[in-house]
């Protein structure tokens, strides 16, 4: 029983920052988290910009080659969305 409880100690210790929060613990944690997240977001934005330029080319090409469907305007056909799959409860 005692062995079981002592094995739980490290797990309970992880909760201490929440049960007994202190500025000494949370201040550096949040500082580094904010700093790393901000830097990663900046790098990620560059990736999005490069990827987005390729996707723009795809979009315009696809729009030029598109065969338009005049019935695709938000209406629901009376046959139902998927006649093969529709079933009762």
């Amino acid at each position, binding site marked *: 029983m005692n062995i079981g409880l002592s094995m739980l100690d490290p797990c309970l210790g992880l909760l201490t920052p929440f049960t007994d929060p202190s500025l000494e613990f949370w*201040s550096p944690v949040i500082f580094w988290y904010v700093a790393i*997240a901000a830097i990663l977001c900046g790098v990620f934005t560059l990736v999005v910009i490069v990827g987005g330029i390729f996707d723009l080319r795809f979009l315009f090409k696809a729009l030029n080659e598109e065969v338009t469907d005049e019935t695709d*305007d938000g209406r*629901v056909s009376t046959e139902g*969305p998927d006649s093969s799959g529709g*079933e*009762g409860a």
Partner: protein
Amino acid sequence: MNVATVDWLILGGLFLVLLGMAIWINSKCRSVADYLVSGRKVRIWLGMGAGIAGEIGLISIAGMCEQGYMRGFGFVLIATMSMLIMTPLFGIFGFGIERFRASKAMSVPQYIEMRYDKRLRIMSGFFNSFAGVLQMSIFPIVGAGFVRVLIGAPEVAFSLGELGIKSDWIIMGILLTCACIFTFLGGYITLIVTNFFQMIIIMGAFYWLGYNLISQIGVQELWSSLEREHGLSAVYPFTGAEGGYTVIWFLWSIMMGILLQFSYGPYLQKYASMDRPRTASLSYLVGSLFGNGRTFVIMGLGVAALAMMGSGQPEGLDVTDTAWGSMATPYFLAQHVGPIMMGILLASLLFSDISTTDQYILSWSTSIVNDCICPFKKTPFSPRAHIMAVRITIIILCVLFFLFGLIYTPTMPIWEFLWSCATVICGTGIAMLFGMYWRRASTAGAYAAILTCLILTVLDLGARQIWVYRGHEPSDYYWRPEEGAFTIFMTAIVLLVSISLMSKGPTKFWDLGKTVRDMNKGKQA
């Protein structure tokens, strides 16, 4: 004013470039699906880039700066805990959003008609559009107030007889006109492309500004000031302080976040425009993993204002503490941002407003036309007339927002107002969620969920107004707004489940999971 000629030139030049782009893209729009969901051909990086701009509205920038100034980075832990739940749910498992894309619906109420019935579509379309439009109506005037303080414009620009024309009204008119032009031209195609380029300007401006401010203040001074002013609550949200965050607040915010992914028109229209269901969930995954960094940079501007000015008002200003909280950051930026950077900052704020407003306006206009007008027409609109109907609705909404801004006087906290509107919309989210995943969810149950969220929210809101009218403090009310909203959600879910279990007869459930798998493998378009 704090704006030099070169700043106006930068602002005007960037605007004209994007306007030229919008006019050119307009020629690419050939069908209703092109206009409303970009022909469903948006891939992941483009969708994410445009999504970033769509998510950073002027009102959210104002809110984040205010949060940074008033509470430091206390919100960071909450955002992270929320991310740990939401990101796997939507980003990895594609919960709901992949199924919505697979249904090929353009709007939430369209799916409601597919799954339940046409009358429910009209009802949910009406309530959602009304709540969405009402929620959005404060965006332009609040954003205009932020810009006015930043550029140092006087409160009253000029007088017409006895009527003082406020600078806020003029700025609001300019913001709405710009958003209207971009939405009018080319619809969602224009919006996706211009939002992508606007994102580059917005992110570039905020990172440049953040770097400059940190260089001026110094990292050590910034963080020490934050700790000095706010103590533990600057970095840890659950300090138990009056009006602070609680467990119920967290549960409510998670639940609302989940339900809005199933019901908030602008979110779902974005998913509907993606080329595959997997693209929708992937864009959520990557966007949410890196989105927090963006929020922290913007919040950091408020923290910088706190470090440089302290928490008190400068001499000569006489505004309430609440008003000072929202104007502190633009006031600080007006003092510390030089020429050229001010022009780029103004352009980024203008574009952040345009990119959000145009996405939301297009979404609600689509819902009004598709879900509240088209179902009553015996013969469908021609594609040209359909697009024209959406465009006319866009203009009407812009005029309504402008008129609302003219008479707007805050009588309740902004967030409380926004949350109440969102609670109404969440009723449709409950019907959507159960409709997608539970075979027995019935039409009667869906009606109950949607009406419960509407009626109980209106009653709660009315009761609070009467409470305040009788001279009580809003904070002394029997329960907090989030406790009320959480109870409403639970009631709606219990009603939907119990009524569905009691209902007999078939439902229109169909297995969207199979469609998702087929579409992701490229077997279906």
